[in-house]
């Protein structure tokens, strides 16, 4: 933003002298007949002519600089376009993602995987969007299948995306070193997701925290109750529509 403003200012600044130059040239041209009429003062005309030439040269130089800058910008744009058009090379994790999707579709259901992609901003982490009704079976498969062995549930996060709520399970295998992020989406009015406690015991407190702060009910959870907020708290603070009890004045 500021750069663009600076450029605009520069252009304006340099266009002004050219206008002034034009005006002065006109004045000088108007004075020319008088000079020709009287042949006595030869020195002033020479000086004026020199000034005129200098100003013309400056104007030409400014015009050339402007043209050069425009060409440079055009060249940059041309250079940018082909790089954008180049097809992205498949991520090194794409085969793993494809294999996981294949295993899920073969062993559980063709409709279990809602979406699958590589998150390039997070070191090419494979992402799986699983439908809630299939999550329990998927969790067992991801953990127990010999090709995956995602035995370590490293993080569980709930997010209010405003159109829906979602829970992200970050999984890693301590043996095969594979990493996945599995997301399950649910609606905002009655959010409900099957619990993953049967697959990973660590999901217990993690899911209680999400239930406490976001209100997502984890069906099948052995002990679903608040863990951070007081038991009599009203509402779920991390929801985007949460109204604080003591709003700032």
């Amino acid at each position, binding site marked *: 933003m500021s750069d663009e403003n600076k450029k605009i200012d520069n252009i304006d600044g340099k266009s002004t002298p050219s206008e002034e130059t034009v005006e002065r040239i006109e004045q000088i041209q108007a004075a020319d007949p008088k000079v020709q009429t009287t042949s006595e003062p030869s020195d002033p005309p020479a000086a004026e002519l020199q000034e005129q030439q200098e100003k013309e040269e400056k104007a030409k130089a400014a015009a050339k600089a402007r043209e050069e800058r425009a060409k440079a910008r055009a060249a940059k744009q041309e250079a940018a376009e082909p790089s954008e058009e180049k097809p992205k090379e498949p991520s090194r994790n794409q085969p793993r993602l494809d294999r996981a999707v294949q295993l899920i579709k073969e062993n559980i259901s063709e409709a279990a995987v809602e979406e699958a992609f590589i*998150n390039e901003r*997070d070191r090419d982490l494979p992402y799986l969007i699983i439908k809630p009704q299939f999550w329990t079976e998927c969790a067992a498969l991801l953990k127990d299948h010999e090709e995956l062995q995602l*035995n370590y549930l*490293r*993080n569980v996060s709930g997010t209010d995306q405003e159109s829906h709520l979602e829970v992200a399970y*970050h999984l890693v295998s301590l043996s095969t070193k594979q990493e996945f992020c599995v997301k399950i989406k649910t609606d905002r009015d009655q959010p409900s997701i099957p619990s993953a406690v049967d697959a990973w*015991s660590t999901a*217990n407190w993690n899911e209680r925290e999400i239930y406490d702060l976001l209100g997502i009910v984890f069906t099948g959870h052995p002990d679903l109750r608040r863990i*951070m907020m007081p038991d009599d708290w009203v509402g779920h603070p*991390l929801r985007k529509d949460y109204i604080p009890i003591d709003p700032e004045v």
Partner: protein
Amino acid sequence: MVRTEELLLNVGPQHPSTHGVLRIVVKLDGEVITEADPVIGYLHRGTEKLAEGLNYTQIIPYTDRMDYVSAMTNNYVLVNAVETLMGLEIPEKAEFLRLIVMELQRIASHLVWWGTYLLDIGAMTPFLFAFKDREIIINLFNELSGARLTYFYMRVGGVKWDAPDGWIEKVRDFIPYMRGRLGEYEDLVGGNEIFLARIKGVGAYDAQTAIDYGLSGANLRSAGVKWDLRKDQPYSLYDRFEFDVPVGRNGDCYDRYTVRMEEIRQSLRILEQAVEQFPHEGEIMGKVPRVIRPPEGEVYSRIESPRGEIGCYIVSKGKAEPYRLKFRRPSFVNLQILPKLLIGESMTNLVTILGSIDIVLGEVDC
């Protein structure tokens, strides 16, 4: 048959051995625990909710106050997440400074654990030794950042202050000094029969259980699982240095003790190499826009803090504030296994087991 009566006992929330504001509702049959229910949340300040209204630089001081015994690693996990999202490159000197302060912090944190753990078990003297030596590290941090515990030292793109003249030399001198002190620590308590009887075979679990409960750090490695993010998923400059990952065998309090003591030695080893290779010339801050505005997307950054894996999950909508920010706190996850370990143990062992897990309530409650 002697009839016993079930007793309900509240340990905490104000209790010297709970290492913070933690309450454990314990059901006892005589002196044997039949059930234990940790109650947390007393220090819940809504850090993640607050973060939604702050820009990324403003969030860094909050990370200092999650695990106030290991603020440097908390700083790093947040700035690393933002840098990963933005694809920033960090100057080498800045990364060296970050690595050095993180390893010093690991030593300081383990010293706090060692001193307070032995105090829990009944040994008064080691606490004084530990805090005296930890003070050297805190003074080093004080020279670097002006703070003793909550440093606000790291920034997105680098670090705020360069090492003062002579600071690296002080770190270099500290290494052999601390090695000598570790030897004294071992002489002081390592062979003490009472101490060993108190911790051997107590609070044991196997590798499968540790993994299932998502334990990390010494709690995981004591069970024989060789998993350390500095080696297995390297970040910063850790792949440049040689060090070993100590592991235990039985997953009991004794193994956690030996793993942590050995981790101090390995940290000194890393520091020795880092100080030797430290680039005295160079920038401490990379090219970062004045307003830090990560692109839309999400990232999960994870590093090895003294207590285990600390992670930072950021969902960004391309604004100066995070849309959602979640911290994976190792103490919160590690504490979860406590009820399982306490069943069948005595009240005396409650303190022993709880202390060996090494929790900090500021980060449990977040």
